């Protein structure tokens, strides 16, 4: 099942399938950040584990490629993952 990264529960893992660009604005908007996400190791096919999410709709903390990464919620919602059970 494909869900946004933010939908993972604490301790759950998922495999990244794709990163959605911001709707309606084409490739330019958010392109830099998409590149940054990929540069930080969030490439398609990578396993990501949810560690926790900050309250008040704050960022999430995930484990990726052996290190902990913090992602703003808006950004993380655009990362789609296949949940692993």
């Amino acid at each position, binding site marked *: 099942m494909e869900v946004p990264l933010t939908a993972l529960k604490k301790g759950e893992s998922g495999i990244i399938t*794709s*990163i959605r660009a911001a709707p309606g604005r084409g*490739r330019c*908007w*958010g392109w*830099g*950040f*998409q*590149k*940054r*996400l*990929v*540069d*930080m*190791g969030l*490439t*398609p*096919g*990578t396993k990501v584990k949810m560690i*926790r999410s*900050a*309250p*008040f*709709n*704050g*960022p999430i*903390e995930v484990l990726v*490629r*052996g*290190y*902990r*990464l*913090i*992602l*703003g*919620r*808006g*950004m993380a919602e655009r990362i789609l993952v296949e949940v692993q059970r």
Partner: protein
Amino acid sequence: MTRKRLRIALAGNANVGKSVIFNQLTGLHQHIGNWPGKTVEKAEGTLHFKGYTIDVIDLPGIYSLSTFSLEELITREYIAIENPDLVINVVDASVLERNLFFTLQLIELEAPLIIALNQMDMAEKKGIKIDYKKLEKILGVPVVPTVAIKGRGIYDLLNKAIEVIEKRAAKPVTIKYGEEIEERIHQLISALKDIQLKYPARWVAIKLLEEDEQVEKEIRELNPEILKLAEKLAEEIEKIHGHPCPTVITSERYEAAGRIAREVQQILPSIKPSLSERIHNLTTHRVTGYLIMILVVLGIFQVIFSFGDYTSGLLSDLLYGYEPIFEQILGQGPLKEIVWGGIMEGIIANITIALPYIIPFYLILYMLEDSGYLARIAFLMDSLMHKIGLHGKAFIPIMLGYGCNVPACLGCRIMETERERFLAGFVVTLIPCAARTVVILGLVGAFLGIEWALALYIINLAIVFLLGRIAFKVLPGEPTALIMEMPDYRIPHLKTIIKQTWFRLKEFLEISFPLIIVSSVIIKLVEIQGLLKPLSQVLSPITVGWLGLPEITGVTLIFGILRKELTLIMLAALLGTTNFDSVLTPLQMFVFTLVVMLYVPCIATIAACTREFGWKKALAITVTEITFAILAGGLAYRLLAILNILEH
């Protein structure tokens, strides 16, 4: 004998101990400045080793060589164009895969390279064992294991560096991509054959496929046909893989990094969570995390400002004690007025603001950063900071702004992009600092009541929110999102922190001293020439006409630019009373305080802004805030007069 000069650059991810290695190498011979025309910090130092004079440059900590940030652009231009004799790639042994991703890019850039495999101790604690000889063989790059905070491996690193430079020994491997990509890289390389490039051709070919804006721009000027070819090839790759071509290439690079990491490291899974792990869980927890953060933040505030207040008072008593001596030598005439009232008081202002507040601030900031706690604060405060278009890290400078805007401005450097730094700097200068609190409480609080003082703070917050949002919309560039590594906790390296503090303090003083002294002398000269009154008259359309204040306040507002609390002190001196309610109406007090609260903090803050953002942006902030303060004051005057809440 003239010594031979060498240039060595340190490159690597953030949080890998790069600055510790830099400090171990260069000791006290450092120069901290900005990259020419940029707001990115540049740290340089020199050392002597085996008959060489070696200039070491600490490049910014980055994760990739794309053009996401200024730091990345600076790094790759420095390596490719300035051609240092050697690049030392500092690699965090405990996060090998992601670090190697960067190493592979340095290899692609064909930089003369050695690797400092740092934080070997932390890797060991995490149960990671690395066969560095094997890594050396796979990459074709010499690898030296180091534990920089203990000074281990630093000598070997230098030795190896000299050896590699002298023998030109390193022969890095070429990182191969999938066949369908390699084929297209070669097509591009042959298309690029006749063009004079400042970067290696293979690297340019890869970057074209990665749709790198900077490289595209440069190639477009040389031969737009190649760009079209690159676009076509990238589209083909996108079709084959189903993902954008830049993503495909980055993925393959990461695959390669992962493969190498797996080959050279052994990970023994640990059974119980380490101490660092447990502290991490506590400090990011939704309840304990915030509690600890509040305590830490209050503690920092307390330390900086009680230390600052106390030392500032002490220093100012001490320095003002010299006034009689100056009087004795120079007499009571205008000469004494200029030397003492202009130059010396400028110096005193500088010393009493800079040293007591900035020293503890820098020490604490670096400690927060190096220990890894800053990342936790950013995590917890992100959603709140988003409301003003910033992200979690901005919380630190904003909080500090309530004490003193100077360290707050300097603290904006923790933000990642130039845009974020500037935005945070703008917001920070609007925060009422301790000096403005003196005016708010001493005038409005004392004569109109505490609820009016509180109202001013609320108005201020609303304005910060509003202007922050406007600036956020108006400034070009991408919106802010938090993408940040959460580093493991570690004990900061005290010696590095002290050196970092000292060199940054020195750089700040070099900017602020002339600025403060010159402006203080000018104001003194104006006073001695008897121009204060005429000047007030010149300003009267604004002060009297627009703001509805007495004419004499014009002078105090000018003096306020030296230090904000001077506005109140001078007001008392010029009006000849501290019973302000006998000379000012409540409405005038409110408007006066509102203007004082909003217009640009003080000359020292302008100096700090200049140091961080360059003089153009510092000027922009200054002019914007002065204009806005006058505008807001006049509006408040009219609005409150119509509403008839405050007596006028």
